[in-house]
């Protein structure tokens, strides 16, 4: 209902503004606004939208009511944006099979398009989009590996609690390469299905592995829950200070651990920048014909460590991280 109202009000606005100025009417398709990650992306898009509005334009967020039928619902939202006479559209290529035809319709209508968050540069090229703005799973792992080797850790392990999942394998694969780039090496510890979702099982596996492999001094985890479990296992093994921990994503506990020096770093895909940059680029393009020649604009991996943890905590409070 809310969505409908937004659409109606937008349509009315367009009616008034059409022909009046060149102001950009930008539509952003994304996740549910109450999704913790997407609320941050939305915040970025809205902040960039302040400039858009100052120049007489408007940014409209279109998100699905739920994720039950994500690909189809998102494709429908893209078509809605076309119907609302969007001047530019931003969208994630979550489910290419369902969404690519809608994105092609955007291109056919001659509307500037940016793919963000999912799909990568490949999707942007395939769909004729201007650019891709987003993170890269593999590079996230690489960044962690290189960070830890730079800190003097030469033997690492990636704790894979979901063996077989594509993005998780990319995290671990990237980590191995990052450690290698820094002159170290790394193994992957895949946990059996009997451990999934049990913090104790993950903590004890990390502890056992560290006790058995005394030379390992760098641990990488694939998510914030696992990072907390690994921290626990590390503590039990008496390895705090000897083994450094880095992980994908973060939460309150992790930020506090980084602040206290217990955890070395966390890797963030920086969703705020995804919304902010995509909208800012399109606004400049529609209004003034600006373009960014750099293709594939990476918003992640961003590294959170002791040097920027206070700013990150402030960002969490402000809803931008």
């Amino acid at each position: 209902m809310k969505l409908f109202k937004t659409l109606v009000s937008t349509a009315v606005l367009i009616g008034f503004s059409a022909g009046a100025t060149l102001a950009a009417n930008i539509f952003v398709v994304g996740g549910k606004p109450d999704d913790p990650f997407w609320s941050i992306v939305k915040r970025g898009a809205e902040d960039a939208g302040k400039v858009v509005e100052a120049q007489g334009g408007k940014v409209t967020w279109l998100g699905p009511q739920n994720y039950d039928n994500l690909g189809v619902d998102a494709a429908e939202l893209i078509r809605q944006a076309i119907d609302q006479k969007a001047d530019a559209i931003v969208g994630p290529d979550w489910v290419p099979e369902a969404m690519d035809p809608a994105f092609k319709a955007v291109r056919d209508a001659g509307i500037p398009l940016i793919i963000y968050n999912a799909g990568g540069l490949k999707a942007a090229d395939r769909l004729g989009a201007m650019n891709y703005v987003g993170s890269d799973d593999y590079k996230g792992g690489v960044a962690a590996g290189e960070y830890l080797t730079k800190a003097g850790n030469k033997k690492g392990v990636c704790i894979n609690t979901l063996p077989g999942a594509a993005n998780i394998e990319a995290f671990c694969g990237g980590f191995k390469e990052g450690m290698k780039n820094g002159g170290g090496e790394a193994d992957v510890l895949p946990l059996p299905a009997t451990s999934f979702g049990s913090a104790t099982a993950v903590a004890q596996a990390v502890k056992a592995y560290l006790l058995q492999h005394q030379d390992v001094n760098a641990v990488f985890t694939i998510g914030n829950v696992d990072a907390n479990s690994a921290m626990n296992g590390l503590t039990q093994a008496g390895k705090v200070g000897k083994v450094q921990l880095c992980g994908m994503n973060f939460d309150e506990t992790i930020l506090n651990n980084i602040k206290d020096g217990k955890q070395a770093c966390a890797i963030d895909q920086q969703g705020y920048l995804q919304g902010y940059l995509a909208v800012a680029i399109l606004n400049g393009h529609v209004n003034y014909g600006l373009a960014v020649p750099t293709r594939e604009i990476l918003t992640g991996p961003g590294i959170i460590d002791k040097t920027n943890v206070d700013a990150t905590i402030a960002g969490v409070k402000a809803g931008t991280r």
Partner: protein
Amino acid sequence: MTSTLTPAPNRTRSGLALGRLARRPEAGSFLGLVAVLLFFGLFGGSAFTSAAGTASWLNIASEIGIIALPIGLLMIAGELDISVGAVIPAASLTAAIISGHYGLPDWLGITAALGLGLAVGFLNGLLVTRTTIPSLIITIGTMFLTMGLTLGLTVKIAGSTGVSLVPDPLTKAIFGDYLGGMFQVTILWWVVFVIGLFWLLHISPMGNWIYALGGDKESARNVGIPTKRLTIGLFMLSGFSAAFVGVSEVMVYQSAQVLAGQSFIFNSIMCVVIGGVLLTGGFGSIVGIVFGTITFSIVNQGIYFTSMDPNIGSVIIGALLLIAVLTNDTFRQLALSYSSKKGPQS
């Protein structure tokens, strides 16, 4: 089948004493335990036998063990409870939301969490006794109900799928501390559960009722056992135990996640079966379940101490389960035929 721990009349021949031992439900699982201890003791090296190595499987065993015990009782009574997997995170999040998100006193969050476990158990028991639907199906249903409510309410209230909680020092000491820096206090709680449920099953009269329930429900009711109340009570016990584990997890890790707990469903059933409890009910013992839990945890943890490829860890766990069931079965057959030939059943 009657209670398996009823003291047999005095017999003079030593062969019979051996037979009596072998006839105990925990005989097979005891041998299994010795086998895995020897195996990992030999191949796991000194790290496995050290205090830290021992703590590593004991910590795991304590959490699964607290849930495996009431699941075992239910299985002896001929029922199953799948919903424990959803009650664990539901309880963790109830405690975390009340005491962490809203900042209310810890005891309130803990009481609410345990109450939630009892409530889900009560619902399970009520549905099982009022309908003819098998408990497996009913508890799968309540599992999804609980899971969905947990996710929906958590996101609605806290705005994310994880909620953190920093417990008071006292609460932390009771539920979430480490003894000697490595042994979870949950281990002591597990011991409490073992003693309490040992009394319930093997000493109190209710124990025989539980065996009778699993042996033949109809006759159990006919001899005057309050089968409905007993069934509901057993389900509430398993709901309570799952909630208890959920509470201690949140106190140990100081954060609760919607996604936790699923692995406990199959792990607890596996421990119980390795411990010699019959899936069809009427046969099993508390000591056996404890042996089964320890065996399972040693295998689960021991893999990391050997040079085995962790990718195939699940293969070993699966093989262990099958071997355990086979030996238990063989043992039971042997023992039963042995005793029936030698004299009257005790």
